[in-house]
């Protein structure tokens, strides 16, 4: 059987651009070439789409000679057939768009909107689930309404803060006590997360957050805490959890560096492995089984409530002093697609199988969506 062409999209106009490149290249490396023909599509920081075999070389990204690539796009109407090459005018047929995007304009429903308009199969969450899960405040609001455990928080709007920062800080401090965590409401990969203990640092953290997001989310900082993550997959018609992991943080909270710039404790660095390279314990034997079960159960509920598809990762905070578990966030396209968790889970999925599962799910979901009737009730025009 001829391998089917799969466009792997990565990069994008996001502060998580580089992480996305790593996720994309890992996915391409792991793709079964007998079944799939991966076509790398790099979305540059200016939003232009490029393809070309050079994109498969990690060294290419040091210099980014974009002029050597072929610029492509996806036309926003059904039946456009795949990737349209701007220079030659030809079209590369694509059977599925595999999303390895993180952050804004990739994981937040905007790209999914384009793919919906073009009516092409794509992996992961749909527009609504992507948009809600990318916004931590919205996600927590939905889950809070369904009595799932989340930390108290306050969302701060940039426009409001610009005119009355001092009043807002005062108001925040009547509800929440130091130490506090300030983070952008709509970014992942721990980008822009600040732990603050003074009023001055709180104001600076808010202002700094507004450089990358219009909304900041302020939460109490749990100390001491244990971070517990679990991946969820839509499998055989239901949300299915992986084993859990406990990532190690070098500071009090897991940072971008912990996640992507350390090499899993390896003595010899072979380049970043993305999220898969972070230091962690997978399926910890000394974790209370009741806590592990709660993590898996709450994660499945959250995944289902938010209408997710594909592979997601739910992050939890466990307050070890109070023995209290809190849902923290859901990543609709997690770093490295959380493949490292599925090789030890039930069902056991190695990375190629996980990718196969995601592509097949996308294709069948697309077929179901295409079967929905779009017939316009007739007769209105005749009366015009």
């Amino acid at each position, binding site marked *: 059987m001829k391998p089917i062409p799969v466009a792997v999209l990565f990069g994008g106009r996001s502060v998580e651009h580089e992480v996305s490149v790593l996720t994309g290249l890992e996915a391409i490396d792991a793709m079964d070439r007998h079944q799939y023909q991966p076509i790398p599509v790099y979305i540059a920081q200016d939003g232009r789409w490029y393809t070309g075999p050079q994109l498969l070389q990690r060294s290419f990204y040091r210099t980014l000679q974009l002029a050597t690539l072929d610029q492509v796009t996806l036309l926003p109407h059904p039946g456009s057939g795949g990737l349209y090459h701007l220079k030659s005018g030809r079209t590369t047929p694509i059977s599925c768009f595999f999303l390895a995007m993180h952050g804004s304009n990739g994981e937040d429903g905007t790209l999914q909107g384009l793919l919906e308009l073009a009516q092409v199969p794509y992996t992961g969450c749909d527009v609504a689930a992507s948009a809600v899960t990318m916004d931590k405040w919205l996600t927590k609001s939905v889950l809070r309404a369904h009595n799932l455990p989340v930390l108290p928080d306050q969302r701060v709007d940039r426009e409001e803060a610009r005119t009355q920062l001092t009043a807002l800080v005062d108001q925040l401090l009547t509800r929440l006590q130091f130490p506090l965590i300030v983070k952008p409401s709509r970014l992942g990969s721990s980008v822009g997360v600040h732990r603050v203990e003074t009023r001055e640092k709180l104001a*600076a953290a808010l202002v700094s957050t507004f*450089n990358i997001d219009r909304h900041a989310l302020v939460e109490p900082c749990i100390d001491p805490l244990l971070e517990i993550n679990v991946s969820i997959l839509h499998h055989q018609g239901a949300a299915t959890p992986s084993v859990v992991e406990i990532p190690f943080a070098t500071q009090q909270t897991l940072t971008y560096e912990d996640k992507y710039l350390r090499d899993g404790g390896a003595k010899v660095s072979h380049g970043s492995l993305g999220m898969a390279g972070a230091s962690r314990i997978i399926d910890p034997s000394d974790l209370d089984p009741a806590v592990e079960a709660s993590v898996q159960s709450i994660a499945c509920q959250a995944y289902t409530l938010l209408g997710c598809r594909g592979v997601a990762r739910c992050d939890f905070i466990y307050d070890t002093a109070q023995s209290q578990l809190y849902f923290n966030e859901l990543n609709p396209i997690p770093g490295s697609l959380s493949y490292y968790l599925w090789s030890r889970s039930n069902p056991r999925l190695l990375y190629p199988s996980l990718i196969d599962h995601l592509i097949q799910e996308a294709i069948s979901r697309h077929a179901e969506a295409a079967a929905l009737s779009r017939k316009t009730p007739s007769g209105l025009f005749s009366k015009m």
Partner: protein
Amino acid sequence: MVATTMSDLMVLLSMTVAHGLFFWRRSLRFLRYLQQEDYDSARFGRFVLERRAFDRRGTAVSLCAALLSFWWWPAALLGAGALVGVALLEENPRRQGKIRLQMTQRARRLWIVAWSVDLLCWGLIVLLVSQPGWLWVMQALFSQLVALFVGVTPLLMHLDERRRQVQLVAQARERLEEVKPLIIGITGSYGKTSTKSLIGAMVERALGATLWTEKGVNTLMGLTREVRERLLPGHRYLIAEMAAYQRGSIARLCQLLPPYAGCITTIGSMHLNRFGSHETIKRAKSELAQGVDPEGLLVCNGDDVGAREIAKEHPKRRTLLYGTDHEQLDCRIRCTGLSAQGSQFELSWQGRTYRGSTPLVGDLALRNAAGAFCLAAELGADPDYLIALLATQQPVDQRLRPVVRGGITYLMDGYNSNPSGFGAGLDVLAKITANKRYLMTPGMIELGTIQEQENRRLAEKAAGCCDGIIFVGETNRAAWSLPGSDKLIFCTDREAAFKTLEERLKPGDAVLIENDLPDLYEPVRAL
């Protein structure tokens, strides 16, 4: 030389190919220098003469080929091969050098015209000269003329460039009319790029969508391009750095970009060699104050005599002075603590004292911050928000930016070439905690008659606070040759200086990298 035999034809073709390739490669190098001289033919000519940027390799090959060709014609073919080799050895100025050649449309036009003129002249020579030996003698002459062909092209194309510029400026005006942003102009002898970055960050983050660039875009055509290509509907503010290259430069910029608000950082001795006197510099900079809307806002550095005088001579509806030292200031900033991580400060504004911290270091940077603060606050930004913003404001790259690597503190101040900035850098170096303190510098340039005096003054100051001074190049060497000082190490170029520095630096040490002269001041690599 009319080719009558196969050998003639071979000589002619091989020499023309070698000639064209040599001109192509060599002219790019000269084009980079011309670009760095703002396409000013006279300044470029001076550079070529002063730096003796004359061809050696091409001429040597051509003369050898000429001598041999007079009695053995195949030598002409060998010479062509050698000239191709020389051409291929040429550095690529688009990939090498501190400031690389930007192949803009204008640069490309100039290059094509220069090459066309050269080929035309070569064609005429080929028709007139009948002997390969003499043709090689002409090639030796042409090797020397590459700089001339490149240098005179801006003159040849002056009218065409002028016509294009008028069209582009008209398009920029249309765009401005459509978007109608509030325009903020910034000028000064130094500190204008840093202040612009601070104002840009503050206005954009505290007030709304703003067009500004961190790069030093400050000429009429640079700003025209920014407006045409980057000004979008929805931009509420436009921040324009305005440089004065002569009297009238800023007035022309103000005609295109009439400012509602203006900020004047300093009236110093930069470009004194261009302007001739301090008074002329002041007059040139005061064109911004004259251009500011009478109902607008003028913000001037109150610690600077010239800027203060301009504020007095051209009052606006709101005229504000900022600084650290002068008695009468509307916005005063004071450093209360300094480390490699940044500064703590107190800022007084409208009867209130704000305390904060910032990654910026040095009095000059804090003064710029005060200027940006009072301008943004006066335009309606929340002062508390601005103070919080300062805590996140990183110094502009290469403008007294502290970087800690391997336990060594590097104060990166490569773009500073003025006495105040240099002095502020030394002050920070002296105050931060360090085992040993080093300075690496080529000194300061473009200070006219006071260049030697100012370099000597700062050399003495540096000798007082540094454990070692690594001096780069020849330009200011005499002024930095302090008699009896064992702290000075002279290096021929930047690479050698960094090597020397690396050998000495140990964890816990600090080094100020002060000023990095453009390629124009570096020794011209083998031609």
